[in-house]
């Protein structure tokens, strides 16, 4: 259908639209008009992605600025989904407009997923990256041209691209990953680099957060995007964690050992080159003396390491004198690594600021802050000068240089935490040095500075005002939409006590109390009796899940559940879990029904949808609080308290509730879907207002303090009503609009606005009268 929002004609690929979709689009348009950022919470299963896409694409095509769209999502499957939606949208637009628009949309994912070369069989993504870099680097192709190296060492798919002009790699249109790979295979070019180099010719790019947030990657990939671009972060409820991860780093003894080895071979190389071809090093040295930064490399080539810090923080002066010469730099690295090794020997936990770390470092090794800041850049240069191609050796060394640069660049908002033991009762030390970022706003700041409109959206992103506080930005619109429903299609319940009136909770002190565990067990039995097909259960942590399952086993609860449903358990191993999921799906589809026991922060809770019969009930056992004894979390909490005025409890509860909401949202993936959401913990009744608006709105007051038997009774009733066939006609005009109804709504709205304006007008008159008096 086609409709207008203000002056903007929007083409929407479905004949009907939900009211909240319309409201959502209006708000996005307004944000884009004004310029600024917004946070929008759109209930899951209401076609968020398609609304986003259809509005932004219409916006782009209609206005002469043609603002580029950068759409960031979290996982590969979500990106793929968005691409498919986009294809549908563009097909529809072509049909509607009668012409194929000059529109190109591509998605980007890692080399591992896109590579055509046999190396993509490698298990690890980094290895594929490194191998690819080796096969595509400019020096090698120069050598090949001179006949010094074998042509087989180069990647043919990459070489083929040189024959083509960069804007004709791929014709206009939208390509899902599969189509992209298929097309590229046909032409014989590399899909990964096709996307990378086509980026500036794309109308829309869909990729994962990291390509924009992680400075190491963003520098390479997203440098050329223009300021006017529309940036969308979808599924953004965890965006603060992504920001933090992109600036954090862990070091282990193993890393240090490998780095030592790396630096030794680096030193050997330096000596060797000095003997054979001393001119090379001398050239580099002279350039550095002059303060030139030899970073202008050809566009086809990629330095082995990018600077890990944000572009604003990179010093622009020349490289300090004490690391200018290759051999001096090698000495410098050796000293730094040795120092880190001595730090790792300490057998108690240390938490210190970067400033105190640097101070101590200087005391022992005379390493100053400034050369450290240049470490990453200098290493990249040296590797380039030495023309090293066996880069695997240096991966660990790269980490060390990254760490050096980070620790010396950032002073506040970061913390070094050394944990000598992995777990509390580990037998031997296995130290890890965490360099953690505590402030999510640091990594995302350049995004807000650079782009004029950033849209942050998700199905569950409550409470909305937490995000501007944590990420330090201003919004022009913050909105949480409710779900319009013609009938109550999901039933949130808060169960606070068992049938025996003993209150249930996953609170640490009582979580292993037999009566609590038994009550949770009964809850599970009862729900597995009444739930048709799939039932998903979420626990706060693996540890808790394991202990409960073993207790249930002893109590005979699992045997009871077994009578009604198959029982499957999520494990940290992703392959096992995916096998389990497959079985679960099969059991749900063939009528046996199944229970999936999973963890609220695990893979299942984040990316897997349990639509329709795959999930009719979701059962949250306990509140999924983070493990508060973690030192990193403690440091972060302290920082939030001191710098963002967010109290510890406030943040912990927010974080727990957003994960809970995520889990709940898993079962409802559309308006024709239905499901029961059970929150089983006494403490939930006080946290009701922290649930997303669309869930809270459907939670009746009477349902916030139930015992197991009452909850079962309510659920039975609910299921019985929903088992009645529904008439799709009921929905029309209420929870779904066709073009006519939309127009009516718009008319009504303008009328209201006019009425309001009239009111204003009246007021003005009155004011004048008052003056005359």
């Amino acid at each position, binding site marked *: 259908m086609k409709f207008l929002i203000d002056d903007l004609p929007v083409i929407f690929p479905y004949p009907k639209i939900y009211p909240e979709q319309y409201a959502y689009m209006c708000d996005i348009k307004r944000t884009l008009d004004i310029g600024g950022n917004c946070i929008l919470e759109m209930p899951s299963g209401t076609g968020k992605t398609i609304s986003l896409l259809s509005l932004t694409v219409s916006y782009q095509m209609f206005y002469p600025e043609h603002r580029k769209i950068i759409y960031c999502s979290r996982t590969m499957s979500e990106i793929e989904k968005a691409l498919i939606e986009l294809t549908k949208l563009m097909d529809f637009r072509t049909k509607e407009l009668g012409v194929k628009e000059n529109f190109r949309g591509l998605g980007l994912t890692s080399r591992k997923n896109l590579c055509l070369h046999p190396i993509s069989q490698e298990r690890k993504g980094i290895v594929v990256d490194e191998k690819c870099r080796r096969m595509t680097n400019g020096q090698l192709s120069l050598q090949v041209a001179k006949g010094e190296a074998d042509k087989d060492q180069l990647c043919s798919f990459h070489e083929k691209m040189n024959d083509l002009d960069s804007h004709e790699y791929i014709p206009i249109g939208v390509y899902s990953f599969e189509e992209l790979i298929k097309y590229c295979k046909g032409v014989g070019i590399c899909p990964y680099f096709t996307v990378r180099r086509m980026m500036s010719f794309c109308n829309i790019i869909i990729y994962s957060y990291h390509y924009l947030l992680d400075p190491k990657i963003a520098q390479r990939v997203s440098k050329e995007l223009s300021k006017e671009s529309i940036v969308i972060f979808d599924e953004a409820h965890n965006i603060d964690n992504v920001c933090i991860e992109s600036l954090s780093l862990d070091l282990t003894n193993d890393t240090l050992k490998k780095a030592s080895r790396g630096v030794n071979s680096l030193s050997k190389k330096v000596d060797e080159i000095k003997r054979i071809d001393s001119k090379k090093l001398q050239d580099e040295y002279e350039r550095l003396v002059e303060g030139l930064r030899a970073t202008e490399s050809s566009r086809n080539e990629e330095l082995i390491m990018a600077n890990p810090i944000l572009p604003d923080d990179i010093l622009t002066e020349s490289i300090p004198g004490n690391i200018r010469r290759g051999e001096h730099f090698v000495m410098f690295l050796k000293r730094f690594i040795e120092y880190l090794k001595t730090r790792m020997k300490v057998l108690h936990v240390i938490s210190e600021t970067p400033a105190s770390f640097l101070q101590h470092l200087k005391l022992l*090794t005379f390493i100053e802050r400034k050369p450290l800041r240049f470490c990453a850049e200098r290493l990249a240069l040296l590797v380039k000068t030495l023309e090293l191609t066996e880069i695997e050796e240096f991966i660990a060394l790269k980490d060390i240089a990254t760490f050096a640069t980070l620790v010396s660049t950032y002073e506040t908002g970061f913390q070094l935490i050394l944990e000598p033991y992995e777990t509390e009762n580990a037998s031997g030390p296995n130290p890890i040095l965490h360099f953690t970022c505590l402030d999510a706003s640091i990594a995302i700041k350049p995004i807000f500075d650079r782009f004029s409109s950033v849209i942050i959206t998700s199905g569950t992103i409550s409470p909305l005002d937490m995000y501007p506080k944590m990420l330090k930005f201003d919004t022009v619109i913050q909105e949480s939409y409710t779900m319009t429903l013609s009938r109550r299609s999901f039933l949130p319940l808060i169960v606070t006590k068992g049938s025996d009136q003993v209150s249930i909770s996953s609170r640490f002190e009582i979580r292993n109390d037999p009566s609590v565990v038994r009550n949770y067990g009964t809850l599970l039995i009862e729900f597995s009796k009444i739930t048709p097909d799939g039932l998903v259960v979420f626990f706060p942590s693996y540890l808790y899940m394991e202990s409960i399952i073993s207790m249930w086993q002893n109590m005979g609860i699992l045997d009871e559940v077994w009578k009604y449903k198959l029982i499957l358990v999520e494990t940290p191993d992703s392959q096992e879990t995916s096998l389990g999921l497959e079985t679960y799906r099969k059991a749900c589809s063939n009528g046996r029904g199944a229970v999936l026991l999973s963890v609220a922060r695990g893979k299942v809770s984040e990316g897997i949808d349990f639509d329709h019969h795959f999930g009719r009930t979701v059962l949250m056992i306990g509140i999924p609080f983070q493990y508060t004894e973690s030192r990193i979390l403690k440091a972060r909490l302290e920082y939030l308290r*001191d710098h963002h005025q967010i109290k510890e409890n406030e943040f912990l509860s927010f974080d727990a509730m957003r994960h809970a909401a995520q889990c709940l949202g898993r079962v409802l993936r559309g308006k024709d879907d239905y499901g029961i959401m059970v929150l089983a913990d006494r403490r939930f009744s006080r946290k009701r207002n922290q649930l997303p608006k669309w869930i809270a709105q459907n939670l009746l007051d009477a349902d916030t303090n139930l015992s197991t038997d009452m909850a079962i009774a309510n659920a039975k009733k609910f299921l019985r009503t929903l088992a009645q066939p529904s008439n799709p006609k009921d929905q029309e005009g209420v929870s779904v609009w066709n073009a006519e109804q939309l127009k009516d709504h718009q008319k009504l709205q303008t009328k209201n606005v006019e009425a309001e304006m009239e009111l204003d007008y009246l007021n003005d008159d009155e004011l004048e009268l008052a003056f005359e008096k």
Partner: protein
Amino acid sequence: MDTEEYCPICKTDKYLSPDMKFLINPECYHKICESCVDRFYSLGPSKCMYPNCNKILRRNKFKTQVFDDLSIEKECDVRSRVMKVFNKNEEDFSDLKDYNQYLEEIEDIVNNLVNNVDIEETEKKLKDYELLNQKEILENNTKQVEKDQIQADLTKLETQLKQEKRRHEKQTAEEDKLLKKANEAALIDQMQNESAQPPQAVRMHNTNVLRKSSARKKHIKELEEQINMHRRALGAGGHGIESSVPPQTPFTPFNGDKDRTKYYQFQDNYYDPIFNDMVSKDPTFTASGYDIKKYFKRSLAEAFTGLNIFVSEEIS
């Protein structure tokens, strides 16, 4: 496992006596255990116990090894010696290039000393430099000591501030709770005996709480002030810490009395039919030091100051 976990002199094994410590001497970096050091060197300097090592060692030079890698240990010792002499800072140089050159020089010296290249020459260089720059070196040393002191104070103050703030928050929260309780109790009382005023006790309590919390706030303010002062002191020395505090200037109402913007251009002559004549003709005006220009200036100033009008701009 490490192979050298026993003392080569007395053959004590680390595995059997886990408390034993190894010491080294920067003369030759040969490792021996603490008790051996006590045994052999407590009576004065003596030869190294290692066969074929003829270095004379003194007891007070023995130290524990910091780094596993002896070459690094050695390098750092050399460095500490060199840095004592070459102790200039970046702000002692007017040009960054010179500073970088200086840094490189240091590296070269260290490198030579560590790798035994041109030892004599390098040593001489070091000596010469020391003689030449004796005064500067001393000065820089004292400067560095001062700076370190300030830095240490700063760290201390900062932790103190943090604790203070934390305490303040906690107490405030507690007091709020108490207050709420008291108020509730008062409300119940009130409802019972219908007296319109909140009882004396509650009001007293309120003011008490207020007084206490403001005292704490003041304390925190003071700490913050101190920290800022330290930061500034460090900042003046050009140390690496970038202070977020803007440079402090005395407060002035118009953002600086030194506002020297000219709102008008003063000309030599102005036409004023009454005054011009009067002043030029009657010497009694000028005798006392009156200058008609002052009058014009004042009038112009009165006309334009405060309006932020620039005549020339207005005309164009």
